[in-house]
């Protein structure tokens, strides 16, 4: 007699379906250039890890036992928190680099604007160009 499965098969299938369609969504975003490879990396890796843990729950139980978590469901919650934290941090990182880029672009724009104003003032002093 085999022991009762860790995860009811129906629940396992549902979770896998959700995760795989999520993965497919990320891949689709990547392929349509709505998500950059760099920004997708954290999502891809963490989602693949979640799929592995859902497909082979014994993996998660093993890890839980290794670190001394007695109730496997607590390991799931902990892993879920890490999943969210990793992706939030990677989001914040890309936000910071966007802010740095915006800053430099805004400054560059202001310098160019001043330069254009200077040049057009000079052109106007010289009078209109000959036809």
């Amino acid at each position: 007699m085999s022991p009762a499965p860790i995860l009811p098969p129906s629940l396992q299938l549902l979770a896998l379906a959700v995760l795989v369609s999520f993965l497919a969504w990320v891949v689709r975003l990547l392929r349509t250039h709505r998500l950059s490879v760099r920004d997708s990396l954290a999502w891809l890796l963490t989602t693949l890890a979640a799929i592995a843990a859902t497909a082979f729950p014994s993996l998660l139980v093993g890890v839980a036992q290794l670190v001394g978590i007695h109730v496997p469901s607590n390991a799931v919650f902990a892993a879920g928190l890490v999943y969210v934290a990793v992706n939030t941090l990677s989001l914040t990182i890309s936000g910071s680099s966007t802010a740095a880029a915006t800053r430099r672009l805004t400054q560059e724009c202001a310098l160019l604007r001043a330069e254009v104003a200077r040049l057009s003032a000079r052109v106007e002093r010289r009078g209109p160009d000959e036809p």
Partner: protein
Amino acid sequence: MKALVVIPAYNEAAALPGLLAALRRDAPGVDACVVDDGSRDGTAEVAARAGVEVLRLAVNLGIGGAVQAGYLLARRRGADAAVQLDGDGQHDPAELEALLAPLRRGEADLVVGSRFLRGGGFRSSPGRRAGIRYLSWFLRLRCGVRVTDPTSGYRAAGRAAIELFADAYPSDYPEPESIALAHRAGLRVLEVAVTMRPRSHGASSIDLPRTLYYLARVSLALLFLPARSRPGRSVEVSP
């Protein structure tokens, strides 16, 4: 010596004409540039009418980004010195020469105007003074640099400091951190005495929670100073 006065201004249309007139009177022949940090009160137009150069930031970047735009202009113009002067009337243009003198003599790379080196003038509330004393102590502890007024935004940067700040300038609450960055880059930081005035218009937005938040943010920034910029990372390509 070619000096450029950088005046960061956010909604300072009311204070600017007086300041720019004083600047023309007290420091004739010095180029000035107003950095309009996305104001909505016509700051840029007021400055342009007064005949100074205007850098208009399309997006409000905050004091750090605005001041850095001025350093970028100074670098592009090949200025020997860039002087930061607040647009709200706290800094007296008559003291510009005192800030520039050490640069002229080659005694310093960054000159900070301190309101605490001599008596008188606007010295801020006791709570804020305590905060400044703490920052000054923390800067000395962290970097070994002695500065009595690390929050002062009245300062003159020589060529080496212009070069440094054009590439790396903190974005929020930049004053104490930029001193640390300059000192760590091997620049000589010197203080000279200046007299500060209360703001000519508007209220300074500083209460106790904000002051504590400010101190925490600056302490954190000083604790984790950014990694030294890698050589060759930000190369200017434009002429």
